[in-house]
């Protein structure tokens, strides 16, 4: 058993448990579990997972992300999703009808898109898809960015944190797993939402974060 609980901060090489099972972000040595990262503990039953506290986004299949179109080609769009790998939306992976060579009429350079990661190949090229109506081009509104490792904190347990912010500010908020957040609403409400998002980014280690956000937004 371990004496650590959720939201505890651990350093690389710190002894987490003697015996037991290590999950993500841990390594075993002589039947002892150690932390791999400077990160935060999240217990899943008896399994200890360590989530790193900073770092770049690593694309994973099935993630929903927000990106910006940087190039339009004959059969695909090139998208910047803040990863160091080549990222495309092929016209075979979209749900709407589009003629090859006429891609710019649907999504042009500098447009924002909400898409899903369909495939990550072994050489790390990323294919995005927009097969269902859920994934669309986004109007150019406010976009903000937080550390991608803090996205689970922003969403909260079963979406509790993000739903609190949405309810309190009446803003449309879309969160991409790559750390990009799209916010739409009246100016004052957008400012409030951004304040809340920045609070999560700064005070991610606080176990009572939901109540601090509610306090900030005067939301009961």
């Amino acid at each position: 058993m371990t004496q650590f609980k959720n939201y505890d901060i651990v350093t690389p090489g710190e002894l987490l448990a003697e015996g037991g099972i290590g999950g993500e972000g841990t390594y075993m040595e002589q039947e002892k579990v150690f932390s791999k990262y400077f990160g935060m503990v999240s217990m899943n039953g008896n399994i200890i997972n360590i989530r790193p506290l900073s770092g770049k986004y690593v694309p994973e299949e099935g993630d929903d992300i927000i990106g910006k179109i940087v190039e339009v080609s004959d059969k695909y769009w090139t998208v910047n999703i803040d990863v160091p790998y080549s990222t495309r939306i092929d016209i075979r992976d979209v749900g709407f009808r589009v003629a090859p060579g006429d891609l710019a009429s649907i999504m042009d350079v500098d447009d924002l898109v909400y898409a899903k990661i369909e495939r990550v190949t072994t050489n790390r090229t990323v294919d995005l898809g927009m097969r269902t109506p859920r994934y669309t081009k986004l109007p150019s509104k406010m976009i903000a960015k937080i550390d991608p490792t803090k996205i689970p904190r922003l969403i909260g347990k079963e979406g509790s944190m993000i739903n609190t912010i949405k309810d309190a500010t009446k803003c449309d908020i879309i969160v991409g797993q790559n750390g990009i957040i799209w916010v739409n609403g009246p100016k004052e409400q957008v400012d409030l939402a951004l304040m809340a998002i920045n609070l999560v980014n700064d005070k991610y280690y606080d176990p009572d974060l939901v109540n601090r956000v509610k306090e900030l937004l005067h939301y009961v």
Partner: protein
Amino acid sequence: MNLENNEYLREIADKGERLDQRKPVQRRAINIKRKVINHADGSAYVELGQTKVMAGVKVLEGVPYPDKPDEGSLIVSFEPTELADDYPKDRLIYGVEVGRVTDRGIRESRVIDMKKMVIEAGKKSFFVYIDIYALNNDGNLLDASNIAALAALLDAKFKRTPESEPESLPLDLQKMSFSSTFVKIGKNVFLDPMRLEENASDAKISIAVSTAVNSMQKGGVGFFTPEEVDFCIGKAFDLGGELKDLLTSSPK
């Protein structure tokens, strides 16, 4: 992925609103620290919001220029550090401009009495070097550099001969010229732009005033109407007084 948010900024700018809830003619908080470099003759560190600038003054002997044999000289240089911006391209754009505009504001206001900086006419005079370093760029380096340069000049002490006591520069405080920078986004004019606002702007105008307008610099592809320029000059005079109070009351 850059978060320029240009379209959103222009959308709220049409209603006269800004990203950080400031009013159109409102500066960010200014924090001045004087005497920060002990091996410079005078120095200052200025924070204008997240824009951070450091200036140092050194007074050295040199040969006066042939057209002004009985005067000292002023040389202002500006250097953006590697960490000031995300991309080298950005640093190249303003790297030359900021130094020249700051130089012009101080030179044309004649705040330093250069006639008193001569040692031997035609042969030897004092050169005042002002070196400005941008440590972080969050927009409006022009105003931050201007305040940092003036604050550094105020404290500068130099020796006329190696044996003499250190003395202040021959400054005329009435003639200190303060710069105010405005940008035009859509139809509205805003003071003290942040970097995102600078990127989204159509045109930029920087005005340095003391008792008169000493220098002006316009940038960007857009234009200002004559009424807008008059408005900016009027505001620059009001704001110059505020900055002067702030600078003279800042702790040494």
